[in-house]
């Protein structure tokens, strides 16, 4: 039998953690369902929304900013993914005297992506309530606001 070891064992711990987390939730709710009173009324079965009566459909449109922020987030999410293996080997390269070289390589990479953040910031994409400053000069002059 091939046993799990090393890397896979480490991931196995994570998996066990997730399984346990899931089980605790399920077991706790199942057990408590045996001893709790069961007495539903129409009022009790209503959706609880902080004591307020729910009005309208919950499928309302969210602010577009969520999308923009998620987009910028992905950019840096991917950047972290690239940073990780680089960080792992950084020490090896320093020992070989190539620290400056791979530092420069990563600086270029991070710099290019950072420019994206600067751009988004300068364009006002990260502001929750946006007043348009320079996206469309003609529209802005006429007092056009998003």
């Amino acid at each position, binding site marked *: 039998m091939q046993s799990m070891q090393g890397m896979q064992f480490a991931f196995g711990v994570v998996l066990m953690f997730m399984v346990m987390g899931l089980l605790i939730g399920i077991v706790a709710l199942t057990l408590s369902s045996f001893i709790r009173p069961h007495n539903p009324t129409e009022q009790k079965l209503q959706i609880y929304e902080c004591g307020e009566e729910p009005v309208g459909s919950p499928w309302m449109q969210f602010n577009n900013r969520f999308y923009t922020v998620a987009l910028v987030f*992905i950019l840096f*999410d991917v950047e972290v993914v690239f940073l990780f293996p*680089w960080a*792992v080997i950084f020490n090896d390269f320093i020992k070989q005297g190539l620290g400056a070289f791979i530092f420069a*390589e990563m600086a*270029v990479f991070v710099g*290019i992506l950072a420019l994206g953040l600067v751009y988004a910031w300068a364009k006002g994409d990260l502001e929750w309530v946006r007043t348009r400053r320079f996206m469309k000069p003609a529209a802005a002059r006429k007092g056009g606001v998003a």
Partner: protein
Amino acid sequence: MDIKTLLELMFGLLTVASAIWVAFTPKLLHAGFSLLFTFFGVAGLYVMLGADFLAAVQVLVYIGGILVLLLFGILLTTAMPTAELTVGGTRRGQGLALGMLLLGLLLLAVFRAGWPLSMNALPETTASDIGKGFMTTWLLPFEVASILLLGAMLGALHLARRAGEDQ
């Protein structure tokens, strides 16, 4: 059956079942959430195959990033979350034929191919090899990737901005 085979089967089943759900549910939002399990199952398979870094990337980027963006995309579009998709439709035959062809090719690749670069022993961790690759042999793809990401972000921000202006 040892535990490894069992886990592989479990992850494979999770991936396939949730992928089928993604393809055949008429509810877009359900498809989006089901994709979570597909991505997770694939990440599990990566771990079983010894690709630890790829598995971490799968969770970090696909589940943590792309799926979130995808769900935002659905939720941010007024009619989308409740829209009923037509599943199947007129091109079902063509889709089936293409799918079967690709499946055949994959089966061929799995059962008949002898990969010249196969390794006898898996490396313990892959991150340092990948890092070395990025910094040396694959430096150009590494830097091109940053331009790719930047261009994609620039364009997507612009398009999102346009969509916001329409209201």
